[in-house]
Structure formats: structure tokens, C-alpha cells
């Protein structure tokens, strides 16, 4: 029975991909458009890229965003690994249901509410004597992003841990490894790829976040999305298109490179595993 998509299926897929990609293509095209306010093509220019160099607000925002994204990635991966380990390995402990609920909740909770609740926590802390020094800024944004990032990192690491072969851990234990050694020498190398994709994912989520950043940012801590959002609210700004083009190019290259790298190391790992088994069979 023929199940390949017919002309209708192909057409549907093509239209769907067109819908998904046309805004991104136009975003890039208009970053080279000479006209400032219009969205009519008036000729090719690199002016908006030149204007970016002098745009302190965006440059500083980008640097701050990258810093926060990097730290968010690291913190989320550490917390997410802990949480995934707990969820996969410890089937019974006090409050497990509450734990898994809390881990997953930020995935679906509206960001406005997550941000609002952290903001209210912050304000309540500021009104106590011990934390009156605490101000909105990079640190508070980082906490908010890591709360969101942890949820995503947990999902990624969890699925890898679930399919991992536990017998190699048991073998290590039989050979006298302490639990800590088993984790760092056996488990961790086995889930490195999941940790890397979790880092990339949480890094980009942090780099992109507006709502939580805006709620938890203070004067002088405007991340790049906050700057872009405030300009986008006012109208169209070709410099935003230029920033967009640069980030799209960088992210696309990074994603393609990392997925190629991951695919290659996965193939190498499979080859090593089968080589090990065939060596065993031969002996």
C-alpha cells in the first residue's frame, strides 16, 4: 500500500514550511533595505549594521544577555541533572509527586506568572532587614532564567538517563567504585551529549527571554530582548532587523555544527560499543 505523501501532502508540507520560514526570511531581507520607516524595498544598504556599532544600548544589552545566558546554561544543567537523577533513580521518597510537579510546572506556567511570583518574592525579601540590600538586576534575572532552564534541562537529561544501560554502573560498583566515582566516571561520560544539548537549549531560552527578564530587571540591567521589545512596541526599527540577522546566522551555524558534531560522536560511540562486543565474542 502506497503511504508516501501525494501531491496534496507535499503541497501541505511546502505551505507549512513556507509559513514557518517566510517571516524569518523577510526579517533578514529588510535588514538590508535602505528605507527607514517603510517596508517597501528601496535598495541595498549596510547602514543598519554600521548603526549597530554605535548603538550602545543594544551592544551593552547583548553583552549582558550573553553573560546571563552562559550562567543560566551552567546552573540549569547542574540543577536539571540533579532533578533528572532524582526522578529516574529514586522512585520512592517523601514528597516525590510534589517534586515532579514542581519540576515540570515552569514548562507550561505562563511566564508572566512565574516572573510575577519571583518579583513578589524579591519585594518581600527587600522588606526584611536581612535582604534589604537585594536589588533587581543581573542576579535576579539569572535566578528566574535558571528556574525555567532547570525544567527544560531536566526533560532532556531525564530521557537520556532513562534509556541508559544501568548494567555498566552495576559493573563499576562490583569492581569497587564508590557511588560518587560511579557517577563521575561512568554515568556522567554517558550523558555528556544530553548535558550539551541541555546547555544549548537553556542558553538560547535565556538569550531569548523577555517577560521574566523585564519583570526582574532593574535600572541599568536591560538585556538585549528587553531593548528589542521596547523598540518593537514603538514601531519598526531596521537596526532590530540587523540584530536579528546576526543572531539568526550565529544560532543557525551553532545549531547545525553542534548537531553534526553530536551525530558524529554518537556514531563513534555506537562503533566503539559494537567493537567492544565483537572483541568480547571473539575471545
Amino acid at each position, binding site marked *: 500500500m502506497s503511504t508516501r505523501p501525494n501531491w496534496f501532502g507535499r503541497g501541505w508540507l511546502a505551505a507549512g514550511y513556507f509559513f514557518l520560514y517566510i517571516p524569518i526570511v523577510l526579517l533578514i531581507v529588510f535588514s538590508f533595505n535602505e528605507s527607514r520607516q517603510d517596508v517597501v524595498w528601496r535598495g541595498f544598504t549596510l547602514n543598519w549594521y554600521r548603526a549597530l556599532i554605535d548603538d550602545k544600548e543594544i551592544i551593552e544589552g547583548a553583552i549582558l544577555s550573553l553573560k546571563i545566558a552562559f550562567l543560566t546554561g551552567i546552573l540549569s544543567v547542574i540543577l536539571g541533572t540533579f532533578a533528572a537523577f532524582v526522578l529516574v533513580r529514586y522512585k520512592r521518597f517523601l514528597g516525590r509527586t510534589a517534586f515532579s510537579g*514542581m519540576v515540570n510546572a515552569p514548562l507550561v506556567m505562563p*511566564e508572566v506568572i512565574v516572573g510575577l511570583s519571583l518579583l513578589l518574592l524579591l519585594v*518581600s525579601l527587600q522588606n526584611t532587614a536581612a535582604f534589604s540590600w537585594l536589588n533587581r538586576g543581573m542576579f535576579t534575572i539569572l535566578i528566574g532564567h535558571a*528556574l525555567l532552564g532547570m525544567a527544560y534541562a531536566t526533560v532532556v537529561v531525564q530521557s537520556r538517563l532513562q534509556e541508559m544501560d544501568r548494567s555498566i554502573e552495576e559493573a563499576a560498583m562490583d569492581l569497587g567504585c564508590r557511588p560518587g566515582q560511579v557517577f563521575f566516571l561512568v554515568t556522567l561520560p554517558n550523558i555528556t551529549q544530553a548535558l550539551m544539548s541541555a546547555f544549548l537549549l537553556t542558553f538560547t531560552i535565556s538569550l531569548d527571554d523577555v517577560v521574566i527578564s523585564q519583570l526582574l530587571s532593574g535600572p541599568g540591567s536591560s538585556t538585549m530582548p528587553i531593548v528589542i521589545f521596547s523598540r518593537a512596541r514603538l514601531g519598526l526599527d531596521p537596526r532590530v532587523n540587523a540584530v536579528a540577522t546576526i543572531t539568526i546566522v550565529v544560532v543557525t551555524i551553532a545549531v547545525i555544527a553542534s548537531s553534526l558534531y553530536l551525530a558524529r560522536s554518537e556514531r563513534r560511540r555506537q562503533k566503539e560499543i559494537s567493537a567492544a562486543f565483537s572483541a568480547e565474542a571473539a575471545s
Partner: protein
Amino acid sequence: MNKLLARLMPNNPGRAVVIGVPYLWLVLFFLLPFLIVLKISVSEMNVGQPPFKPLTEMVDNFLNIRVYLGNFISLFDVANDDLYARTYLSSLKYAAWTTIFCLVIGFPFAYFMARARPTIRPALLMLVMMPFWTSFLLRVYAWKAILTTNGVFNQILIGLGIIGEPLHMLHTPFSLMIGMVYVYLPFMILPLYANLVKLDGRLLEAAADLGATPWQRFWLVTVPLSKSGIIAGSMLVFIPCVGEFVIPELLGGPETLMIGRVLWDELFSNNDWPRAAAVAVVTILLIIVPLAIFNKYQAESQGERT
């Protein structure tokens, strides 16, 4: 008591640390903030710092606890001000329409993806996921340039001679819906694809052998078997849509009421923190039912895997 202690402090201290670290983090930055939201939602507004009055007071050596329900009552005082009731209804309405459109576009899309040659499936999947890696904010912003009065869409329509005058499309329910469907479509496609790609083709063949028409095969075999994917995708679209803020702010208009925007205005324009907290509490109550459905199916699909 000893038993409880033994459960809390197992003989393996490593285990206690492994559980304790993420647990403490979540209690501090997830549970505690929500309890504070609850507390402030039953406080009275205060002009000054903090912008809400304390719940507890010591009066003549008595501890007075005052729970103020005015914030909640005013949300549903339709006779006086029906802004909130209308906003909740319209948020649910836009979220439901977004879910329906995503399903109608996304189901055939995921179906055809899953039926494509196995060699090109990873590339098709990658192409759906790529927009995820591109900034969400910038993709929403891009629609502004497309839908604005002298924008690309109007230029094309005029160029084709379909319309004479440019249409007003930006900041209308139409532009809001386009933005929401656009952003959330991959959230619908991915779980559906994951589900449909596992569909056993032999079942369809069996149905065909037994005389089912293609239409019957679709409705009686494919759809029931992909039920968990449909539910997961729908919840992944519906729940975040209810509280969406950025898309209505950039693409919506004054008449497209969404709860995220009203909450934001309460907080930053009116400085009414107790009211904002009450709005948040009611929003959580609204999405808690779909959330429970989602968790149930999520647990089931994880159970299938192990």
C-alpha cells in the same frame, strides 16, 4: 517518629544531598513565591512601600489576621466593572481558537512528515525545530512588518489586484491569531509527529483489507491511535496561550483583551500589586484543569517508555 526520621535521613547521605539540592531550589524559588502571591492576593493595596498592607497585626496583645477578599470580589463584580470577566473569557477564546487552528494545520503536517521517506524525516524534523532556535521575539516582530498597513502582505494583495486599498490588519484579532498560531504551531507538530511516526502501518493495511475507505481508516484508526499526541499537543498550545503576553502586546490591538497584558498593566501602570496577584491566582485556577490532563497523559506516555 523514628521511621519518619529514617525516611527523611536515610543511611545514604549522598542520596539526601542529591534529592535535597534541587528540592531546596524549587521550594525557595517556585513554591515560596507562589505562597507569597497567594498572601498578597488577599492583602489590601497600600500607597507606598511595600505596595500592600500586612496580613497580621498585633492589636492589644491579640494577633489579628485579616484576609481581604476584595481583590477577588472586584474581579468578578460584573455589574461594576466587567473588564476582568471579559478578559478571562477572551483569553480562553483566543487560546481555544489558536489550539484549533494549530491542530487543523498541524495534524496533516505531522501526518505527512511521518509518511515521508525515512531518510528525509530527520531533515524535515530539523526544519520544524529550527525556528525554535531563532528568537521568538524577533519572529513575532517580523509579523509586524508583514501585516502593517504598507506592509508586505498588503503590497502583495494590491499587486495581485485582489484589493484596491490596503487593509488594516495589524493590531486586530486577525494579526493576533496569525502570531499565536505561527509561534505555537511547532508545539503542536512535534508531539503529533512523535506519535504518528510510531503508528503501525499494518493496522491501516488491515483496515483497508477489511474494506474501510481512506476516510474511515483515518477517523477510525489513525485518529484514535494518535489521541495522546493530540492531547499533549493541544495542551502544550492552549496552556501557554492563555497567559501569553508578548504576542498580544506586539500584534494585538486595544480590543484584543488578554490576561497577560491586563496583569502587566495592573503591575506597572496601576501599581496595584494585590490586584495583580489576584489576577494571577485566578489564571492559575483556570489552567489547572488542562494542566492536570496534560500531566496525566505525560505520565502515561512516560510509563509506556519504561
